[in-house]
């Protein structure tokens, strides 16, 4: 694996260091094999981040990318918001303050 910058919890800190291949490796680390459905969510997150300035919430993914929250839970079991951000190489969603 090429070296990339991550924070204490393993989330990438540099947007541009992310690649498709890296996504596959990150996913494998948390026991997920990426299918087209996964990619749809990941691609949305990647595209949304630079315009929005924040990692999209589950609601935002479901409303704007048209993937129901229930399905996000099936694709990224347990903690979908965090797992998606991790694979997409984005900061952990802040959950607001």
């Amino acid at each position: 694996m090429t070296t990339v910058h991550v924070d204490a919890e393993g989330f990438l800190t540099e947007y541009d260091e992310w690649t498709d291949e890296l996504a596959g490796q990150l996913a494998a680390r948390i026991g997920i094999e990426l299918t087209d459905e996964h990619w749809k969510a990941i691609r949305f997150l990647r595209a949304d981040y630079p315009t929005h300035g924040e990692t999209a919430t589950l609601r935002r993914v479901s409303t704007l990318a048209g993937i129901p929250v229930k399905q996000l839970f099936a694709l990224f079991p347990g903690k979908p918001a965090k797992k998606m951000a991790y694979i997409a190489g984005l900061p952990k969603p802040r959950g607001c303050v």
Partner: protein
Amino acid sequence: MMKRLVILGGGTAGTVVANKLRRRLSLDEWRITVIDRQRDHLYQPGLLFVPFGGREDLLRPRRRLLRNGVQLLIGEVASVDPERKSVRLFDGDVVGYDYLVIATGTSPRPDQTPGMLGPQWRRSIHDFYTYDGAFALREALQGFTGGRLVVHVVEQPIKCPVAPLEFTFLAEAFFRRREMRDQVELVYVTPLDGAFTKPIASRYLGRLLDERKITVETDFLVERVDAERKTLVSYDEREIDYDLLVTVPLNMGADFVGASGLGDELNYVPVDKHTLQSKANPDIFAVGDANDLPTSKAGSVAHFSSEVFVENFLQYVAGVAMTHRFDGHANCFVETGDGKGLLIDFNYDTEPLPGRFPLGRLGPLSLLRETKANHWGKLAFRWIYWHPLLRGRRLPVPSRMSMSGKHRPDEEVRP
């Protein structure tokens, strides 16, 4: 020609902005109009105490809180047309503007969670974020004879993110005072991975919940309420039973924001986080809970950001660059029961830290520590709110956050 500034919403932010700008903009040149759907202004922080029998000085006529020279229009906004620079009300009125401030806040939306609104709403399912809700919950708590009380947050962001925790602490103290604590099981259910969003405060608050024997259920994103079985069901199919549910429903900005193409997926107005200018239209600004700033939705933020906004707005209408920058400053008292409270103070970059406030070593308030002074601070805030704050006078707390008096818990504190 008179210039027209229209402010939608006359709550905390709308009132402060209208009063401050009325003093700074000439009466001969500027007409300032506030539009709100309700005649009375509600002091929302007071709602927290209502379920436990708290005082009821919660409503005041909006007209009296606005300076002379500010016009008040009572009506509900249906849509904004940024092209034509006009606002349409549900009664058909159309109001034109040159500059628009959206200050319509955020509202609880129980209709957004399947099963929440229905025959059990305000019987076994309650909220305290509304006037009627807080009073209905008072009845329910009076009549509660024991069982499982579940305090629940649907989703972030919510206004006053500490309010559900405060409610939980106050409920625990309430049942202890009534000598029925051992008949009540208290559960706190949150979509977050801890008691609060930021790690240090989350640890402090988590410890307090622990000490009071309150169970915390984390990462719980509710899919629906099964009101008949009295159960919360999450998207990952976990279930939590309750006898009495106190929920903070999904909070959303006003529908007209979304309908007018000015909002995000929760109807919050995307703005520049330092100037509060709408990303969609430069003549529109959004202050208070109505915008998408990555800080707390709180009265303190409405107030601090309004101060910055006012200075920038005067520059903007004078045709010069806006030079003031809001830093996300928020501070919130957190009631913890038994006449005590703690205080948190933070901004975009710095999470809540322990220490003293507002004056370095002197305090007199303590950050992230339970004291009686913090409780009295919270109660005193009611007077400050109705008088200097809403009038738009300067308060001794600066709009910019200060690091004076704060320390990271792992850092050594020198005497």
